[in-house]
C-alpha cells in the first residue's frame, strides 16, 4: 500500500529481479528513474484522494500564477512609475485611496498600489518559504539519517542539540538578531532554515530513520558490501523523504509567518513583503481606524493566512500519503 515507506525503489532493483527482463540494456539510472516515477504516480493517486490537500495545492498554483503575473504586468501593462511596489507613486489622487478604477485594491499611505505590492511580494514569499524549508529539510534529513544510522555519540550530540534548539522561541530570538543585524530576505531564510533543521525536524526524521534502519534490506545492503554512505544515501534517505517532504510543507508555513511577524515589527531589511505592507499601515497609524482603512491590511493579511493555510493543507494531504492509517478507510 504505502509504497515509499517500504522502499520499493531500492528493494525491487536489488531483490525482485525477475520482474524485469534480465536482458535489458537500459542503464541503471534510467530504471531507477522510472521506478521513482512510478512510486511518485502511486503516491499522487493517494494524494488526489485528499480533498484538503488538493484544495491547498490549487491555492498554491493560483498563487504561483499570480506571482508570475508580476513580470508580465510591469513590463507590458503597467507604468512602472505608478505601479512600482517599492517606489511607485500615483500623483493624481489623495493617498491612501480606497479601491478605484486605476487601483483595484486602493493605495497605501505613500501612494503605492496595493495590488502591485501583493503581486510583487508573492514571488519573494515563495522564494523565502521554499528556500528556508528546503534548507531545513535537507539538513534535517541528513542529520536525522546520520544520527539514526551511526547512533552513539553522533546521535547524542545532535539530539541534545535539538533539545536546546527546540527551547529557542524563534520569533523573539529572530527579533533580537534582526534588530541588530538588519537581515535581508536571503540571510533570513538561511538562518531560519538552519534553526528549524537542528530542532524538532531532526528528532522526527531520526525516529523515522530508526524504523527504516532495522528493516532487513539494510542488513542485506551491508552484507552486500555497501558502504555506510551508500546505505544512508540509497536506502535510508529515500525512505524518510516522504516524511521530510511533509515537514517541508509545514516549514514553509512557519517561515512565512515568521517573516511576516518580523516584518510587521520592522526589524527586517526587506523593502517589500506582505508583512511589510501591514507594517507600513501600522506605523502610519491607519490601523487605529481599522474598519475604515480595510484595504491597507485586509488583502495582505488575507494573503499571508491563505498562503500559509495552503501549504499546511498540502502537508495534511501528504500526511495521508505517508501515514496510511489516516486515510479514508
Amino acid at each position, binding site marked *: 500500500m504505502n509504497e515509499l515507506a517500504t522502499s520499493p525503489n531500492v528493494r525491487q532493483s536489488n531483490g525482485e529481479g525477475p520482474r524485469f527482463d534480465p536482458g535489458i540494456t537500459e542503464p541503471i539510472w534510467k530504471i531507477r528513474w522510472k521506478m521513482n516515477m512510478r512510486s511518485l504516480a502511486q503516491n499522487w493517486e493517494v494524494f488526489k484522494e485528499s480533498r484538503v490537500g488538493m484544495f491547498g495545492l490549487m491555492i498554491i498554483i493560483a498563487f504561483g500564477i499570480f506571482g508570475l503575473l508580476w513580470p508580465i504586468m510591469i513590463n507590458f501593462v503597467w507604468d512602472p512609475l505608478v505601479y512600482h511596489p517599492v517606489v511607485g507613486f500615483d500623483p493624481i489622487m489623495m493617498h491612501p485611496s480606497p479601491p478605484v478604477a486605476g487601483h483595484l485594491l486602493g493605495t497605501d499611505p505613500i501612494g503605492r498600489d496595493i495590488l502591485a505590492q501583493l503581486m510583487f511580494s508573492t514571488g519573494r514569499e515563495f522564494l523565502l518559504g521554499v528556500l528556508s524549508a528546503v534548507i531545513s529539510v535537507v539538513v534535517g534529513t541528513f542529520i536525522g539519517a546520520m544520527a539514526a544510522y551511526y547512533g552513539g555519540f553522533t546521535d547524542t550530540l545532535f539530539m541534545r542539540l535539538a533539545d536546546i534548539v527546540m527551547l529557542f522561541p524563534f520569533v523573539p530570538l529572530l527579533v533580537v538578531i534582526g534588530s541588530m543585524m538588519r537581515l535581508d530576505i536571503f540571510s533570513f531564510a538561511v538562518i531560519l532554515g538552519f534553526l528549524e533543521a537542528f530542532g524538532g525536524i531532526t528528532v522526527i526524521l531520526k525516529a523515522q530513520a530508526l524504523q527504516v534502519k532495522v528493516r532487513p534490506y539494510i542488513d542485506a545492503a551491508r552484507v552486500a558490501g555497501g558502504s555506510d554512505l551508500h546505505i544512508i544515501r540509497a536506502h535510508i534517505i529515500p525512505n524518510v523523504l516522504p516524511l521530510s517532504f511533509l515537514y517541508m510543507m509545514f516549514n514553509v*508555513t512557519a517561515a512565512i509567518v515568521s517573516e511576516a511577524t518580523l516584518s510587521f515589527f520592522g526589524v527586517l531589511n526587506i523593502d517589500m513583503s506582505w508583512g511589510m505592507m501591514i507594517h507600513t499601515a501600522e506605523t502610519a497609524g491607519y490601523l487605529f481606524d481599522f474598519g475604515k482603512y480595510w484595504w491597507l491590511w485586509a488583502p495582505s493579511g488575507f494573503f499571508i493566512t491563505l498562503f500559509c493555510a495552503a501549504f499546511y493543507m498540502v502537508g495534511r494531504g501528504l500526511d495521508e500519503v505517508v501515514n496510511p492509517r489516516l486515510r479514508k478507510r
Partner: protein
Amino acid sequence: MRRYMLGRVGQLVLTLLIYMTLVYFLMQAMPGDISQMYLANPRIPQAAREELKKQLGLDRSPFLQYISYIKNFFTGNLGVSFSQYPKPVWDILIERLPRTIVLFVTANCLSFYVGFVLGRIIAWQRGATVDHIATVVGITFWTAFYPLLSLILIWLFAYTLHWLPLNQFIEPALWTRAPFTSNTVFGYMVLGIALIALAVFFIFWTLRRGLRRTRRSAALAWGMTAGVIGLAIWIAHATGTLIYIWDIIRHMMLPVCTLTLINFAGTMLLMRDSMLETVQEDYVMAARAKGLPDNVVRDRYAARNALLPTVTSLVLSLASSMSGGLVTETMFSWPGLGQVLFRAALGNDYPLATGALVFTGVFLLVAHFVADLLYAALDPRISYTGQPAEG
C-alpha cells in the same frame, strides 16, 4: 523515582548552561562590540562606568567575561538596563515574569482543553459536516497571521463593541486611588487562583475517580467547586480587592482568547489525527464488544490513548507557542516578558534583551520539565527510570 527526578534536574541545569552559552555567543557575534556599547552608552554616567566595567568583567578576557556572565546570572545579576537606567535587568524581569507565566499557562491550558475536546468530537464523527468545518476553521486560525488577528480582536471587542477594555494590564483611572499596588493584587490573585485550581483538582480527584461516576458525585463535585469559588470571591470582596482583581481579569480576557484561538487548532488537529489511529486499535473494538456506552469508549479508550502523542507534540511546540505568546503580549501592551524583549531589542538595550531571552529559555525549560512529568504520569508504560518498559 527520586533518582530520576534528580537526574532530570541535572539535565535541566546542563541544558540551561548550554542555552545561556549559545545566547552569549550570539550576542558576541552581533556586529559592534557590546562591551563598548555598554560603556559608551550616553545614559550611563561616567562615574558608574568603571564600577559597571568591573562588575561585568568587561575588562577581562572573553573567556573570563563568559564565566562572569554565567556566575552573575546565578547570583541574580544580569547587568543594568540601558533604556531604564539605573534599574537592574533582573528586577525588571522578575516583575514581568509572573504576568507572562499567568498569561501563558492560562492560555495554553485553555487552548489545550478546547483543542482536546473538539479534536475528540471531530475524530469520533469523522467525515461529518462538523469535521470538515472544524478542520477548515482550525487551519485558518492555526495559520492566521497572529499580530493581525490580535488587531482584529481588539478592534472588534474593545473598539467597536466596547465589551472589553482596550489593551494594557490595568485601568489607570481605577488604580490611582487604590490602596494597593497592582503587583500586590496580581500576586494575591495568582496565589488565589492557584489554590482554587488545586482545591478543584482534589475535589474531582477524590469524588470522580472511580468507575462508577454517578450523577450524585457529579453534583457534589460541582457544588463543592462552586463553594470554593464563592468563598474565594467573598474573601476578595472582604479584603476590598475584588474590583481590582476583576479589572485585571477583564484585561486578561482578550489576550487569553487570542492566544487560545491561535493555539487550539494545533491540539485539535493533532488530537483528531492521533485519535483516528487509536479508534482502529483492537482495544477500542474490545471496549465496544464489552457493551460500554459510546461516550465511555470514546473518552476512556480512544481519546485517552490519543492523548499521549498529543501531549508529546505539545511539548515540542511549547517554544513556538511561546513565540506567539510574546508577540501577542506586545500587541496587547501586556507588560510581560514579550513586551520587554521586543522593546529592548528594538531599542538596542542589549543587557535587557539578553536577560529576557535567557529568562524565556528558563521558563520554557521548566515548562518542558513539567510537561515531561505530566506525560510520565499519563502513560503507565513509562517507568521513572526513563526507559520505556518492555512489552
